[in-house]
């Protein structure tokens, strides 16, 4: 057991650090939840792509550099330490791409992934519906068979809380292709353009008013067969592999939290190290470090795995949930439900860390003060607030931990 990076891992870190130092914009980009900021962040994705850093863990054929999970962790550490911009492509890279690697065909990979890697196509997710939030299996939007245009599906219904949809190009989600089947049977995983005929996008403002998500009204939106991922009627399985990913380390990499914890300590020092905040500041660092070490352990347990497919490379086993979710505990049980533990852990850490920062900043700075140094903490806090809710509420995650990790009786 060790914590020593290999020579090549070390070189990878140095390369990433140097590149980021040279390329990260000196001034923060405008918020990616605005039209202007969205465009600026799309440009940044292109810069990343040109440098070979937009999707490090993907195969080279699709724009990546075949990085291992450990290297991906290193890249993320450097990325957040450099205070590089948020990733406007993250829905595509973190949610759709792993599903494609696990369930897509060669044609789809070749067609979808490169423009995703370059920022040419930005993806929105379209999971929730008004009556199907945490209870995703109850969704009602349907895809009806059509033989027009060479065969495909007509999407109708309503999606909501579709993040990035206000400005994105395309979206992916689950639709009911077999109305006879209930719950998670008869669902299919489809991709569709947001500018297609029949799509109405109504932006929804989040707490700070910015349109971070949208409602989608779909009326007979045509999707060709080529844009069904995996088998028709098997969408739930594909979606669950994505859901596992969303909760796991790949959506919220440890580097994000170690960088924030380091900044928190810096903030605490700049405020003359108030002793009444010491416990909370130290605790944030401890938890971020724990998450980082858990990530190293997970990467060590699966040294061949890339971050892209959560262990399932193209043509891999397809058991992506199980391998993505190897236990974070270095000595621990390899539980397929560790992603639920991860999700609870990082989402609660994220809020506590930002609350501590806001309390250190004091009054007036619980206000969004754009352009002032404090604004990053307020933005981060708003972002963190969503953590315990989305990608399966923490209540559901704790149920999963209790029932599937600990083996407690199913609830009623």
């Amino acid at each position, binding site marked *: 057991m060790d914590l020593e990076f290999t020579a090549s891992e070390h070189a990878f870190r140095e390369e990433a650090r140097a590149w980021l130092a040279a390329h990260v914009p000196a001034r923060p980009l405008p918020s990616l939840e605005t039209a202007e900021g969205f465009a600026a962040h799309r440009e940044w994705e292109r810069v990343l792509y040109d440098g070979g850093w937009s999707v490090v863990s993907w195969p080279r054929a699709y724009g990546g550099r075949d990085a291992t999970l450990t290297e991906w962790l290193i890249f993320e550490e450097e990325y957040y330490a450099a205070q590089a911009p948020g990733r406007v492509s993250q829905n595509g890279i973190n949610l759709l791409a792993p599903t494609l690697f696990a369930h897509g065909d060669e044609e789809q990979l070749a067609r979808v992934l490169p423009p995703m890697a370059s920022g040419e196509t930005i993806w929105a997710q379209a999971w*929730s519906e008004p*009556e*199907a*939030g*945490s*209870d995703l299996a*109850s969704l009602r939007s349907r895809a009806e068979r059509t033989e027009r245009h060479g065969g495909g599906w007509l999407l109708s219904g309503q999606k*909501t*809380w579709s993040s990035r949809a206000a400005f994105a190009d395309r979206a992916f989600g689950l639709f009911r292709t077999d109305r006879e089947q209930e719950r998670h049977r008869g669902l299919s995983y489809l991709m569709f353009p947001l500018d297609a005929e029949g799509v109405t996008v109504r932006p*929804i*403002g*989040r*707490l*700070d*008013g910015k349109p971070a*998500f949208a409602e989608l009204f779909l009326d007979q939106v045509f999707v060709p067969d080529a844009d069904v991922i995996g088998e028709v009627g098997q969408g739930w399985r594909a979606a669950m592999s994505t859901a596992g990913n969303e909760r796991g380390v790949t959506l919220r990499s440890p580097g994000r939290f170690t960088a924030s914890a380091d900044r928190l300590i810096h903030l605490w020092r*700049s*405020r*003359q190290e*108030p002793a*009444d905040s010491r416990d909370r500041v130290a605790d944030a660092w401890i938890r971020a470090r724990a998450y980082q070490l858990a990530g190293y352990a997970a990467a060590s347990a699966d040294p061949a795995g890339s971050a892209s497919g959560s262990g399932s490379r193209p043509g891999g086993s397809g058991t992506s949930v199980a391998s993505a979710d190897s236990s974070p505990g270095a000595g621990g049980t390899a539980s397929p439900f560790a992603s639920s533990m991860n999700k609870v852990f990082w989402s609660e850490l994220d809020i506590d860390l930002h609350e501590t920062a*806001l*309390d*250190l*900043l*004091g*009054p*007036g*700075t*619980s*206000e*969004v*003060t*754009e352009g*002032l140094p404090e604004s990053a903490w*307020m933005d981060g806090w*708003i972002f963190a*607030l*969503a953590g*315990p*809710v*989305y990608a399966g*509420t*923490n*209540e559901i995650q*704790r149920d999963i931990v209790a029932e599937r990790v600990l083996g407690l009786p199913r609830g009623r």
Partner: protein
Amino acid sequence: MRFLPDEDHRTYAATVRRLLADAEPAKAARAWAAGDQGPGRELWRALADTGLPALAVPEERGGMGWYPSELAAAFVEIGRAAAPGPLVETVALAAALGADPRGGDTAGPWLPRILTGDLLVTVTDPAGPYAVDGYLADAAFVTEGPALHMAVPEGGPLPSIDPTRHLVRCEPATPVESGEPVPGDAARLRSLATLLTAAQALGAGRALLDGSVEYAGRRTQFGRQIGSFQAVKHQLATVAIALEFAEPLLHGAALAVRAQPGGPGPAEGSAGGPGDATDPRDLPAAKAACSRAAHQAARTALQVHGALGYTDEYDLTLHLRKARALHDAWGTPAACHQAVLAGGRFPAVQGEAASGE
């Protein structure tokens, strides 16, 4: 001892509550956030017509006396309604002007026009350091120790997590013209502002709890009302308990503010005799407890509502956002805790460390 609101008190709170419920305060708040003061000003005039600011001003200065308990009850309702504008600051300034230690009519033209509801003013202190609605208000003030100065807002308005609060940097010691202090009781101002902010937070928390309970009974997932899940129940019960036990502190704090010496207003409160259980520590205690309960209510509301609770357009998020802003206004939790342990005295400059690096 009769540590319960009396009939008049309850009647007045009910009046304010009804007035606000009928006045579409959420619409007024959204208009205020967009810079349209019309509905918010109208609401304030209606509140002033009930005698709200007059409850902070002695009769000889045109008011009705010194009634912190009744003011607190009214601000619970203002918090419950998420009514916009610098209402706390306006009422607290009226109290300060009315309690001008020099007495007489030296306070300038503001006091009468506050009492009629024609003016809304803002005020901050060095711990602020932002004044809420600095450009929208008719005048801005800043405290400095025992003194009160006029102020000119500086720099652009800053957005707040609470979109109805338009913040402006407003450093101390920027008196206009003469630089002479405004005659008023800054200590009374700060105490009343702290009390009424606590009350507003408690009201916001009550609204958040009520809205969350209502939603949890309505929303179904997995084939059942989400409010039937024990995890949801327990979070809401925890909030209910926190609010329930913050309330007596607020009442205690109002009595402590009423009993505070210094102002010329008739201190109808206790004589501070041996049988008197008012405690100056109740003021910081109430601010800390009400803010914390409201904050818990906001966190829980977000969890119960899911993404809906994270959206700008859902009315309950007006309260959710205000809860965080009020958390730090007129006494951060840390400053309140220090004050509790210092016998009720707030640290000289609240949150001094916040004023810069």
